[in-house]
């Protein structure tokens, strides 16, 4: 059982949780993630660690409700528990002093990119952070974005906050203005990462993207998270999740992420129909504190 010591909404359908997980807190490095399972019948889902406190023994995650598991998770509050949390998984981000770095993040990707942006700034880089969101109420962690960067831009699709346009528009402006960019990190929806890769690869700018393939174990045991890099297959959970954007086959990633679309939609619909009941049930199961198996 992993206790939630703090839960708070941070944006539309986006919630931040601080979870007691002392082993993970001690070992976490930027770019790594956890896998959690809410209850006995739940699936395992990967979530990036936004920050960790080795002294308090806690890790912070940020969750956007998009399907059943994330919606159920986002119904939990301070004091509730999660059945299983494992990590830190994946390779840490490669932190070096590159010079000028641009970090592009879309929606919940902002939380995922923050620890790496901080680390890059601390390593002496000039960090330009471009945060994108659909509209004002999806803009998250603006203060932290500013703290983690040397320059920050907020972009919204509808122009309801910051500047209007996609994050790639700002990147384009920077490139047009002749800014020297030594390194780019893009974290967010696959089409956004692909668009960034298409802009930076021809210019030879080293670009890393964080791939969100579907995972089960997170330890390299199932191969379900495999992504195509050039002609080579890699496992996102152990060889990634960050990969060199110029090598990534984004089409295959998008196609593989649709594998369970129908079931996911059905299961979300079914959850929404009797959400309250299911949350009560989950709470009871977790409060009983009993782990049936272990």
């Amino acid at each position, binding site marked *: 059982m992993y206790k939630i010591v703090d839960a708070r909404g941070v944006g539309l359908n986006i919630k931040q949780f601080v979870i007691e997980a002392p082993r993970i807190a001690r070992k976490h490095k930027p770019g790594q993630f956890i896998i959690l399972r809410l209850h006995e019948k739940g699936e395992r889902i990967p979530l990036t660690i936004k920050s960790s406190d080795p002294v308090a023994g806690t890790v912070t995650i940020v969750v956007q409700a998009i399907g059943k598991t994330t919606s159920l998770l986002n119904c939990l509050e301070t004091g509730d528990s999660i059945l299983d949390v*494992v990590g830190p998984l994946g390779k840490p981000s490669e932190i070096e002093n590159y010079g000028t770095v641009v970090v592009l993040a879309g929606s919940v990707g902002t939380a995922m990119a923050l620890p790496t942006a901080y680390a890059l700034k601390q390593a002496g880089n000039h960090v330009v952070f471009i945060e994108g969101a659909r509209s004002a109420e999806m803009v998250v962690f603006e203060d932290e974005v500013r703290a983690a960067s040397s320059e920050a831009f907020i972009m919204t699709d509808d122009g309801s906050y910051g500047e209007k346009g996609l994050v790639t528009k700002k990147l384009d402006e920077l490139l047009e203005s002749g800014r020297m960019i030594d390194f780019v990190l893009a974290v967010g929806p696959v089409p956004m990462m692909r668009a960034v890769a298409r802009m930076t690869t021809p210019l030879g700018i080293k670009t890393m993207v964080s791939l969100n393939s579907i995972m089960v174990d997170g330890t390299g045991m199932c191969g379900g998270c495999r992504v195509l890099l050039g002609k080579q297959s890699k496992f996102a959970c152990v060889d990634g999740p960050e990969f060199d954007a110029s090598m990534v086959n984004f089409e295959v990633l998008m196609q593989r992420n649709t594998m369970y679309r129908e079931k996911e939609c059905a*299961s979300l619909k079914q959850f929404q129909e009797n959400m309250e009941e299911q949350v009560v049930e989950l709470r009871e199961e977790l409060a009983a504190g009993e782990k049936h198996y272990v």
Partner: protein
Amino acid sequence: MSENRVLPRSAMNVLPLKERMKILRRHMPELDPLVRSRNFAEVNLGLNVLDAVTEASRCIECAKPGCVVDCPVGVQIKTIVALIHAGDYLGAAAKLREDNALPAITGRVCPQENQCEGGCILGKKGAPVAIGNLERFVADFERESGQLGLPANAPKTGKSVAIVGSGPAGLSAAGDLVQKGHRVRVFEALHELGGVLIYGIPEFRLPKSIVKGEVDNLRRMGVEFETNVVVGKSVTLDELMNEEHYDAVFVATGAGLPVFLNVPGEHFNGVYSANEFLTRVNLMRAYNSEFDEPVYDCRDKDVIVVGGGNTAMDAVRTARRLGARTATLVYRRSEAEMPARKEEVKHAREEGIEFYLLTNPVELLGNENGWLTGARCVRMELSEPDESGRRRPVEIKGSEFVLPANVVIIGVGTTANPLIQSTTPDLATNKHNYIVADEKTLRTSKPGVFAGGDIVTGGATVILAMGAGRKAAASIHEYLTRGEW
């Protein structure tokens, strides 16, 4: 003690040898293939008492029993069979536990035809004694009787041992070490304990309740378990020894890394490794709609499984149970070379699995949306035997054909789990990334660290992993007692 309970021959009303040799091997009752190919209930139902005793009476008590020689851990089969014959089932179970820590499991999954039963003299002319079925019988009898003779632990030594991995190797080492008075803690990466026994071997062959029962016994004996710890990531071997002060570590992480075919098309939707498919279905219970885990909807679909071992056989029978219209096994050698247990091959055939032997996929085909549509295969023929002694399959030119498929599951083998090796530079590995350990002591290149099971040998069997666990326990005990590396 148990020997005393063996009744004298005269009391057993034994038939003369000649008559006994006429008794046919007792048949293991099974679920009807039509019924079982639609559910996940255990296929084999277990011998009843009468059949078990009758089967035991077939043993001719050889002076030099070949059965014992061919059991990898030397289970004292002759004595055990005699105890069963005498009706002392608990005595038989106790005797069995002297060499075999997981008898309810090995009785079900050992490849008996290559091991104990392969060595049984009766097999030279007719059918060998059904040793596996008898082993399962006594282990189940013991469990159901509730009179488990859990051994007493030796006084506390003050030493502690960390075990990494909760497969058969880790579990059996844990049991032996806790009995010697050491503090034992098992670290497992997944959320359930049992290794392949839980995530790989399906419910219809090895019910989870049996594995759970063995784990509960260990817990009662004082073994501590910590799930959700990926050693190498959550904590390193050095941290376990230097910061958490374990006096010794046993690495039993198995060979769980899936091997793909490396043919074009392996990224289409519908292509799985057998590990992923079986993990989704077994560990995550995707066959039960109450659970959230999705797996490809196999109903009325064509499923191909590639491989000829237990893993492939488990995957293809699982697909059948999930409602596949056709469930086909594609294997590049002939049936004689199939590494799967013979009983599973028979059960698979009964359940309507189709076999494409001497066939190999060379390309997976898909539609414009990225969904699998079939596999382009070639016919193979067997040439001269290779180093492994098996005849090497070679392609027959111009024999290509397409098998339609919505799902392809690749079960052609696994390799070493790498997470510990990559974070422990002073742990010697061979060129395939398996951990190098001394054959007798299971000591690795790193002082205080031992390794055994599939992570040393490569994918093998439950009983070999269990044997390695026990060997490691003895060696670790010796190290902790003498204190010399």
